């Protein structure tokens, strides 16, 4: 509500500026039926985005096209197609260094081609947002869903959030900028969603009106000087150049890496607020059988909980919304009393299982079971999850798979 003395502020696209809290929690929402890619467009439309650079790769191309449409419509300031993902992530870095709120999207092999850029983004403390529509990595050639690539990204110094569905994705993109741009955080955020399962699936999404938007990015609040020649330059590079071989430069480099990791830690309270908690729980809180999952694996685990109920087995799901920062305390609390922890995943290596084991080591008596695991585009029907549980309990497997 506007009071009489308050001036209404508009962004460059003519949308009314509202607080992130209003946009995310208070604004009235209406139901729309759309794909995950369209949800990206709707989020970007309300995010006062300054710049986006794109490169096609299935399944994210459509989201990138739609951001281009927003540029034509005047919602995005700068938009073009780069030469490759390596080029795009570098161009994105330039856009953000020059003071723009910047977003891009990619998938699978594109992520790996761009890889050298992600630690560079983190090291230069730019609050870029990458929407990653996870997909299989060649070879053999695959465009299918698989989230192996996320395992590679975990320790780049970027925040990693994981959306379960189009609604999560919409809200996370808006929250992502808000959290990433906090002056005491100011590191990139990679918002992951499972390709195809979410990007290409139509579902109900509750959206606030499109004539309101996030407050524009203020680059002068950044902890590093913005590269726009509007402030006197320090005698340093954007990333302090510390490759001289002496103890001070080693210490500087090491402390900088710790600082980037600390920045991710400092995002916890903000992420907790804007995401309504770093985890989400589903099912019987007293059940001894717990699924820990993220993305669509969490959605399928929720279905499995319902099927297990029919088998007379009580189970619950702990969905992780953030992987970096890892919700350590939340997970420890949530698995108190658990006997079995299943970690269903859409990749062959089980990176989430590794994470869960690492953080629960010495803090939980439960047996951690890294299953089921599917890859290469295979779906994970709830029955596959149920089968794993029944195998463990020695029960007959009734469901036909």
């Amino acid at each position, binding site marked *: 509500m506007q009071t009489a003395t308050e001036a209404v502020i508009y962004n460059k696209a003519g949308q009314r500026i509202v607080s992130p809290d209003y946009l995310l929690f208070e604004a009235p929402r209406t139901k729309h039926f759309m794909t995950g890619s369209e949800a990206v467009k709707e989020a970007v439309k309300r995010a006062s985005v300054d710049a986006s650079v794109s490169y096609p790769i299935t399944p994210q191309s459509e989201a990138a096209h739609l951001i281009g449409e927003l540029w034509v419509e005047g919602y995005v300031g700068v938009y073009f197609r780069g030469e490759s993902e390596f080029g795009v992530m570098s161009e994105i870095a*330039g856009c953000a260094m020059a003071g723009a709120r910047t977003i891009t999207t990619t998938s699978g092999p594109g992520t790996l081609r761009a890889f050298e850029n992600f630690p*560079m983004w983190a090291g230069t403390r730019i609050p870029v947002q990458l929407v990653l529509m996870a997909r299989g990595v060649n070879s053999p050639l695959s465009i299918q869903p698989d989230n192996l690539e996320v395992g590679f990204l975990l320790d780049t110094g970027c925040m990693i959030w994981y959306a379960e569905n189009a609604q999560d994705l919409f809200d996370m993109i808006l929250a992502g900028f808000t959290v990433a741009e906090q002056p005491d955080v100011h590191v990139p955020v990679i918002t992951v969603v499972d390709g195809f399962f979410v990007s290409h699936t139509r579902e109900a999404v509750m959206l606030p009106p499109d004539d309101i938007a996030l407050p524009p990015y203020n680059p002068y609040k950044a902890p590093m000087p913005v*590269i726009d020649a509007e402030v*006197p330059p320090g005698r340093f590079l954007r990333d302090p150049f510390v490759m001289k071989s002496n103890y001070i430069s080693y210490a500087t480099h090491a402390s900088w890496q710790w600082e980037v990791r600390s920045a991710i830690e400092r995002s916890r309270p903000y992420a907790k607020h804007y995401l309504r908690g770093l985890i989400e729980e589903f099912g019987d809180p007293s059940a001894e059988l717990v699924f820990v999952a993220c993305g669509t694996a969490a959605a399928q685990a929720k279905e499995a909980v319902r099927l297990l109920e029919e088998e007379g087995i009580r189970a619950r799901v702990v969905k992780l919304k953030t992987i970096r920062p890892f919700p350590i305390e939340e997970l420890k609390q949530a698995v108190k009393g658990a006997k079995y922890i299943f970690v269903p995943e859409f990749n062959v290596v089980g990176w989430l299982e590794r994470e869960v084991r690492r953080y629960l080591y010495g803090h939980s008596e439960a047996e951690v079971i890294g299953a089921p695991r599917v890859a290469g585009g295979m779906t994970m029907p709830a029955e596959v999850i149920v089968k794993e549980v029944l195998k463990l309990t020695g029960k007959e497997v009734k469901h036909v798979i």
Partner: protein
Amino acid sequence: MSYKIYEINEDLLDVMPQEIRDLQFRATWGNPKRGVMDLPYSKELIEEHSLCAGCPESMALRYILASLPNPEDTIIINSTGCTSLVFPHIALHTVHSLFGNQNAVASGIKRVLEWRFPDKVKDVVVLAGDGATVDIGLDCTLQSFFRQEKITTICFDNEVYANTGGQESGLTVKGHVFKMAPKGKQWDKVPFWQIAIDSGCHYVARLTVSSPKRVETVIKKAIYVAREVGPTYVHLYTPCILEIGLNSDDGLDEMRQRDKERFAFFEYVSEPAKEVIERKKEEGLL
């Protein structure tokens, strides 16, 4: 940016280091006519550096920094290599991000600055070695030309990967034995100035840095044309005296030698660029 931003608070004047005071009292901000002739009398935009003694790259950097028409609003993008050791000593906004992505980073910066400051001139200059420009970064370099990004790209061609200890590059001359070309370079030096023309640059020059005044004119033309028309490219021979086995005081002679052959002065100017250059001459800026 206003160059007045360099003015030191009066109460702090006596405690500021001399180099910072010099930036206020002896620098050449705000004067588009600044040039290499100011070097002996004014504060240079570069402090001491960690290049090898007598390295022609250091001369090139001094001349280029002295020639920028608009240093107070110029951003320089660099790449990994010998030049990147100099960048922490430059009193401008500079960026080093990775090896080979300099033209991509510059594209992002230029486009956002044009959008954020539509009424101001912000010059974006890329400065990198031959390995960065023509080998690992070739894709980003060429594509920035194709996209007609309004940036100036300067290549320091020392015909070798110097910073990693003397490996052959795409710009090494045929037959030359360098590390990783133990039988001698197998193919010809890439004529990148020609590729730059064919790829859409509006002003292209090839030269050594033996003549400071000539470097100044070329850099100014390249920046003025990039500002108004599109991509420009300057190819400078800055021999790696270390890797070709010359003494610290041999760099200048080496360049004068090459002035007569493979780095003979060459200049290409597109039609729209000619118009800009003529106008700048009339304004007394060239």
